[in-house]
């Protein structure tokens, strides 16, 4: 199954604003207005998302985790994919050039198709050693 390129669409923004921003914050830093009331602060996407495969993230969005609600069956598979891409997008926003130099090839790959389809396994490869 092909995913759209790593852009950011209005539909993704709307989904994120309606369903994620309260806890995860406007930029996925874990600083939404409800975050302080949670027993555990939501993660900063920049610290966690790049190490997760698409199926792993999709499982969390669909099935929930901790106090995070399960968005299946409320959302369609296409909407869950949109959320997944938005999470990926926010995890890369504001990165330094050095980060992109390490990951650019892989980012392009999994912006086009899921990790497992390109690489043959679910988990993303480890960071390149310089």
């Amino acid at each position: 199954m092909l995913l759209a390129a790593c852009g950011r669409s209005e539909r993704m923004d709307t989904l994120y604003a309606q369903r994620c921003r309260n806890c995860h914050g406007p930029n996925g830093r874990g600083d939404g207005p409800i975050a302080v009331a949670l027993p555990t602060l939501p993660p900063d996407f920049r610290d966690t998302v790049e190490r997760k495969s698409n199926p792993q993230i999709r499982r969390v969005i669909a099935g929930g985790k901790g106090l995070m609600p399960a968005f299946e069956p409320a959302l369609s598979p296409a909407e869950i994919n949109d959320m997944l891409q938005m999470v990926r997008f926010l995890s890369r926003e504001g990165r330094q050039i050095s980060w992109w130099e390490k990951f650019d090839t892989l980012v392009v790959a999994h912006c086009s198709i899921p990790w497992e389809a390109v690489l043959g396994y679910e988990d993303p490869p480890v960071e390149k050693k310089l």
Partner: protein
Amino acid sequence: MSSLRGWGYCQLGLVFFSNFASLAGAANAPHTALKAVERREVKRPIDDFSLTDQNGKNFQFKSLHGKVVVVAFAYTACPDVCPLITAALRRVQTHLSNDERKNSHLLTVTTDPEIDSPMVLAGYARRYGAELGGWSFLTGDEATLQSVWKNFGVGVKRKARGLVDHTPLVAIVDRQGALRFAYTGPSPDVKLMLRDIRSLLPDG
């Protein structure tokens, strides 16, 4: 008797103080910090109702007559304060002694029957570690639920599939079936709820 009207609505983590007619106005609320929970003492009889529990079995409210009942309104896909409310109820259940559990019961009534089937509610209950002997998760048809929501003074407005604005209410009903304490807001104080529940128990 205190009126339940005029309570706030839960929308994107905020509580608005408005009447039911202005519910739609909450949809474009700005993001600010969480508001405090409002606690009210009331005394108003609650009408009997019949819904379906997480096992797909019929549930009759009057079957709990003689017990203190904590009733929360929430829905499983809620990206707002419902998780905080359900987590608070879980903590209440954990802190009740065995004797207190025998004389009390928790209810979570959905505000989104379109999504919250008994199976979905059963999964939700499992995720929160609810002890189902003393906690029922209820759904039903829209018309029946409308009358239950109205009975408790809960406003509900569907915004999209799996996205609902509703009054974030936790109500405590006494052993005679009268609403006695009402908490409106994102994260009710567990110690305060336990105190109120215990005040209505036989030895309270």
